């Protein structure tokens, strides 16, 4: 019973949300496989569960407690301050100022989404791309921002006029399903974008995106391709793997695994872990079944831009 134990508390999305709860849990599972630790999780059904779930893990049986999502920010803070000896880490949230026993894990998602936008602009036949989100909140819209700016850079460099439907980075308004669980919205919204000419769509709405994949599967990938988000969707949605042009990775599994390892080897230190292209906390997945379809020049350009972003010569904010 003295094995190292990592515990996770999910937000209301649940452990199998095909999104960040699941990806973070994958980090724990990786640690179980690689380092032989024990792992357990508690799901929250509503916000008032956060504090209660955290409390029930505070009996000392967990070596590190991982919480997921910005909604748990306050609850985690309260618990961490009341239990300074307990190690915590929160995914997708940062404290300012930092708390000594909490590691915040945040991601420069726009960097990876930027690459996706560039890629998509290079791949579109119709010259129209589409994106939509779950709700209009920054964790969602950073993807959309990056995507649009990436496509713009492509236009700039190639003199094309690829447009992105569904998000306007200036007015901060766009296309949103209003939820993260109605899969058929994913299909309908993708259909809407498709009807307006889009042939590559990036849904940023958790499992709702699976509905978009289903539409692409039906229409055929010549007509519609999907860009996945969070995890490599060819892995999390293997049945529809062929429709994903690529995925914008937010490597929560990797950062979670890192944090667990640091807690194990004693190097744990409160503060911030930022996933970037540079440290591979974010990135672009492979091109899956489009590996051959993506021109070599485009691949080269992407590598060059990646480097540009890392060294700061390319801004992902469109400035």
């Amino acid at each position, binding site marked *: 019973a003295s094995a190292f134990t990592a515990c996770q508390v999910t937000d*209301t999305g649940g452990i199998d949300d095909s999104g960040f709860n699941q990806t973070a849990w994958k980090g724990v599972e990786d640690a179980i496989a690689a380092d032989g630790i024990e792992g357990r999780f508690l799901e929250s059904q*509503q*916000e008032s*569960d956060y504090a*209660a779930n955290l*409390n029930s893990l505070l009996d000392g049986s967990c070596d590190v407690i991982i919480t997921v999502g*910005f*909604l748990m920010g306050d609850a985690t803070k309260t618990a961490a301050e009341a239990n300074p000896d307990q190690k915590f880490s929160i995914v997708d949230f940062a404290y300012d100022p930092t708390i000594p026993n909490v590691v915040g894990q945040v991601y420069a998602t726009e960097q990876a989404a930027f690459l996706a936008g560039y890629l998509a602009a290079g791949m579109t036949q119709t010259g129209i791309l589409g994106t939509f989100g779950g*709700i*209009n909140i920054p964790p969602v819209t950073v993807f959309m921002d990056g995507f649009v700016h990436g496509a713009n850079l492509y236009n700039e460099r190639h003199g094309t006029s690829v447009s992105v439907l569904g998000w306007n980075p200036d007015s901060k308004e766009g296309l949103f399903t209003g939820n993260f669980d109605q899969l058929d919205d994913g299909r309908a919204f993708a259909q809407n974008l498709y009807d307006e000419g889009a042939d590559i769509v990036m849904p940023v709405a958790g499992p709702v995106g699976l509905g978009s994949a289903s539409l692409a599967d039906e229409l055929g990938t010549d007509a519609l391709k999907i860009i996945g988000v969070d995890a490599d969707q060819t892995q999390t949605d293997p049945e529809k793997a062929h429709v994903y042009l690529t995925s914008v990775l937010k490597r929560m599994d990797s950062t979670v695994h890192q944090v667990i390892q640091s807690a194990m080897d004693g190097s744990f230190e409160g503060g911030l872990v930022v996933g970037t292209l540079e440290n591979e906390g974010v990135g672009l997945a492979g091109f899956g079944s489009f590996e051959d379809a993506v021109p070599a020049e485009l691949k080269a350009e992407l590598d060059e831009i990646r480097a540009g972003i890392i060294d700061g010569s390319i801004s992902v904010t469109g400035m």
Partner: protein
Amino acid sequence: MSTSIGKRELDDAGRALLQRASGGRGQFEDLVIVPIFAVIAALVLGALVMLATGVDIGTIGKSFVALGKGSVGSLNAISETLTSAIPLILAGLGLGLGFRAGLFNIGAEGQIVMGGLAAAIFAFSFPGLPAILLIPLSLLAGAIAGAIYAGFAGVLKATTGAHEVITTIMLNLSSFLILIWALKQPYVQVAGRSDPISKSVPEAGQLPRLLDWIDPNLRVHAGLFVMLIMVAFIWWLLFRSKIGFAFRASGENPDAARYAGMKSGLIIVAAMGTAGALAGLGGASQVLGVLERASPGFSAGIGFDAIALALLGRSHPVGILLAGLLFGGLEAGGRQMQVDAGVSIDLIGIIQALIIVFIAAPLLVRAIFPWGFRKDKEGGAA
């Protein structure tokens, strides 16, 4: 006529009419035995579901122990049960009152959202006020917001006849969107956060925790008193007050109510408004007592659970109180089940549903457990 109402000397024949029919064994069976069997039957079926999905017997046993432990097994468990029950009961009271007045208001969820949002905004807008003012005023803000939101459906029904089921469903769906929009407004959103979360309720606006002198983690808060007062108040309102009489009369027979000079439009708006105020209060107490700020989805389906609650409690304040405690216990116990046995918390939903089925259909329980009841016909017919 010379006879005046009110003061009358009664003869023996008159006094005989004042005998109340005693409930007898049938009532006892319905009130005590049926619920006990209902809980047992629900747990057994819940166990079968777990077995069917490959959970082993040991774990099943462990999870039921955890259910008990998590709901009433410790001070913390009781505190959690009460904490969960507070908003459920408040919203349930509102729905029950609406049902009594013949209004099928399923809008508690939206009213909770509005109430909670308003309470949070009010509380952080006046951080300078002392607790003695800030808490009641914030609660009031929540109640008023809920009342207005529900009153909207009431006014529509009273003036155009628009069915409240439709309008309240639509208002529920709209409320989530309004909430998210509101939480992104600079005035509401907490500084330095990019996600939609309201500013925190200042210390003085928070409903004080009742047992934090024993253990700071005990979350039961002063909303408990608000809830209990409301149970008593609604009981009084429905069964003792004039307006309650009018509510019940219009609920049972709107034509008779009109005949009796009750204003149907006014009653609809008043009943919806009161119901909305209660749901809003539920939202406010959740925000001021537990969450300490408003965020997307803070209503967490309380308004929908409250429908089941109001129905289960037969729209009677005391019934709703008991049903709310049961639901709160299941919620708290369900969390413990997850912690101790690793069983998915979704199972609690199934058990909840089964318990309601059995409580609400005494005939079903009698059919399953025939030996638990007397055979006579009188006892059975309610």
